[in-house]
């Protein structure tokens, strides 16, 4: 088990390296454009360009440039933004992490619960009206762009129905730190949580239902029924338990991807100053160092999530313990 763990750890480092190389190549080696102009931002002066070339070693070979870049990202952590005149990039990113984690964490609780409820109920009532209704709702949930849903939510809760009893509690857009005002934190995030979770409830409900239905056809389900345990126990203890393998894998990847920038649209629409919003603002000003930092940071989360999934996997699927 330890060997398997270290094997995966090694794999994780390799993938991290791969991603950082890809990101680096996209920014620094795209054919036909000068990276120094991109780093310096729009309408940069000639002196700035010279300074950028020197700072990033752009006149030196690519591997050296890569090394310098990684050094500034992880070791000296002094990568600075040119657009925002000397703003340190790394502290800005780390400062935004709690916001993103609050948003994604809360939404994750909602979508896991929602996905489980929708998937199990639809799977258990397969072919009935309830099943069809849940699946149509899920499909709609999967088909709504999250940023648009957020705008609709804002339209209703901030403007049209804000003065009714239903949404009068909704605070203005923005983030309230948990440490400062827990209740305010909660109120500010409820609407974003539901908005972000909608897509995933639909997605997880559909996947879980399909997986559950497939599992319920397995021979071991017949064995379980033959044991004379009730159908609910057959469904939950045997059917659902074996379906969770697919569910957990998906969850790890999606959680990682969201923390690593996928929540960007939600953050933008609800004015939450998370990592995604940071990326968005950098996009508007073409602030390349900031984007590079958020991308690398994001990939770190994604790969971490992959690793955590692998570890959790070992706990929920005994077969994974002995393989390799």
């Amino acid at each position, binding site marked *: 088990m330890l060997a398997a763990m270290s094997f995966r750890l090694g794999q994780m480092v390799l*993938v991290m390296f*791969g*991603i950082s190389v*890809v*990101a680096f190549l*996209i*920014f620094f080696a*795209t*054919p*036909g*454009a000068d990276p120094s*102009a*991109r780093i310096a931002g729009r309408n940069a002066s000639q002196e700035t360009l010279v300074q950028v070339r020197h700072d990033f070693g752009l006149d030196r070979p690519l591997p050296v440039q890569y090394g310098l870049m990684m050094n500034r990202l992880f070791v000296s952590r002094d990568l600075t933004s040119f657009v925002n005149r000397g703003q340190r990039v790394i502290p800005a990113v780390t400062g935004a992490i709690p916001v993103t984690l609050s948003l994604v964490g809360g939404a994750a609780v909602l979508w896991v619960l929602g996905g489980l409820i929708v998937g199990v109920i639809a799977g258990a009532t*397969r*072919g009935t009206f309830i099943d069809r209704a849940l699946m149509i709702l899920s*499909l*709609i949930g*999967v*088909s*709504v*762009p*999250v*940023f*648009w849903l957020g*705008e*609709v939510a*804002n*339209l209703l809760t*901030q*403007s049209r129905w804000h003065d009714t009893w239903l949404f009068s509690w909704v605070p203005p857009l923005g983030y309230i730190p948990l440490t400062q005002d827990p209740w305010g934190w909660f109120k500010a995030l409820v609407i974003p949580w539901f908005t972000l979770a909608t897509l995933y409830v639909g997605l997880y409900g559909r996947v879980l239902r*399909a997986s559950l*239905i*497939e599992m319920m*056809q397995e021979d071991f389900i017949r064995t379980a029924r033959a044991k004379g345990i009730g159908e609910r126990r057959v469904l939950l203890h045997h059917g659902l338990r074996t379906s969770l393998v697919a569910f957990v894998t998906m969850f790890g990847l999606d959680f*990682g*991807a969201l923390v*690593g*920038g*996928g929540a*960007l*649209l939600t953050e*933008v629409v609800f004015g939450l100053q998370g990592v995604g919003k940071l*990326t*968005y603002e950098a*996009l*508007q000003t*073409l602030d*390349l160092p900031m*984007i590079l930092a*958020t*991308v690398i940071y*994001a*990939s770190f989360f*994604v*790969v971490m999530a*992959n690793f955590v999934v692998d570890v959790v996997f070992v706990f929920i699927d005994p077969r994974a313990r002995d393989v390799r």
Partner: protein
Amino acid sequence: MVNVIADQPAAPVRQAAAGPWRTAWRKLKADRSAIAAFGVLVVIVIASLAAPLYAQYIAHTDPFVTNLNGEIVIDGVTQPVLQASTEGLGLGMTPIGPTWRIGPYLLGADNQGRDVAARLLYGGRDSLLISGAAAVLCLVLATFLGVVSGFFGGIVDVGLSRILDVLWAFPVFLLAISLSIVLIAQSIQIGPFEIRSGSLWLPIFIIGIVYMPYVARPIRGHVLTLMQAEFVTAAIGLGASPWRILLRDIMPNVVTRIIVFVPLILALNMMTESSLSFLSIGVQPPDASWGTIIQDGQGLLYSRPIVALAPGLAIVITVLALNILGDGVRDALDPKSSPRGI
């Protein structure tokens, strides 16, 4: 449940026989929701193609030209297209709302006095074009890489798989953002081709690339299992050439898999395109897509919500139809996915 008695798993297609295709087509035709979804898509495509006709003959406007001082006659009363805002500090302008009658400004105007309904149709053209072209690019690339990787195996497979793994681990959105910011800022020159910074080819290329690993990996896996299948072993044993095996035994089976992907990739592309455009790194002005119109409408959200709501609804309906069609196609073509036993 008849399977219990005569348990014969659906055998892979040995050749491009008419049988399985006809069965699939029959199943799809019997799926009423899939057919309805297909009908909706056809209507949307036709409506989008008719955008210039609508702009010229019904709306009587050019939806790409600002019309800040325009006027419109409603019920004999002449009204400006943009009025001074009555909300807040009275700063800024509020465009005219929907007239709800066939003619100019059916859905009102945006903050530059442009006809929202006409822009919606034009936006549909770009959204559909980008989604479609990106889907073609993605599927062609993915099929090529997946088949090459699975069919030749060995060092080719190891190399390609590693690259796909890294791309796969790269969050889709960030990959798209990274590519966009680099490509959209300046025009780029690749060999003899120059791509202007505002070109629609950029979003097509970006969206096509980012979902490629999601299709290539399953195709590679499918080819690998097919290579182990008895009918392929038999063909190898009979001394069939690799080309023959690839074309006669592998491809017909891979094609069904690819077809299953088409509606789903289209739906994903449509979502991604609108998101990128919303973030202003997709379609660039003066071109419009549903995503850019939603962004235009963001500033008018509380005063003229229709500008953001209408294109969003268009996206929801299109993507929903694609997803329903996708479910139907998958049920019809992929026997494994249809619940066994019934």
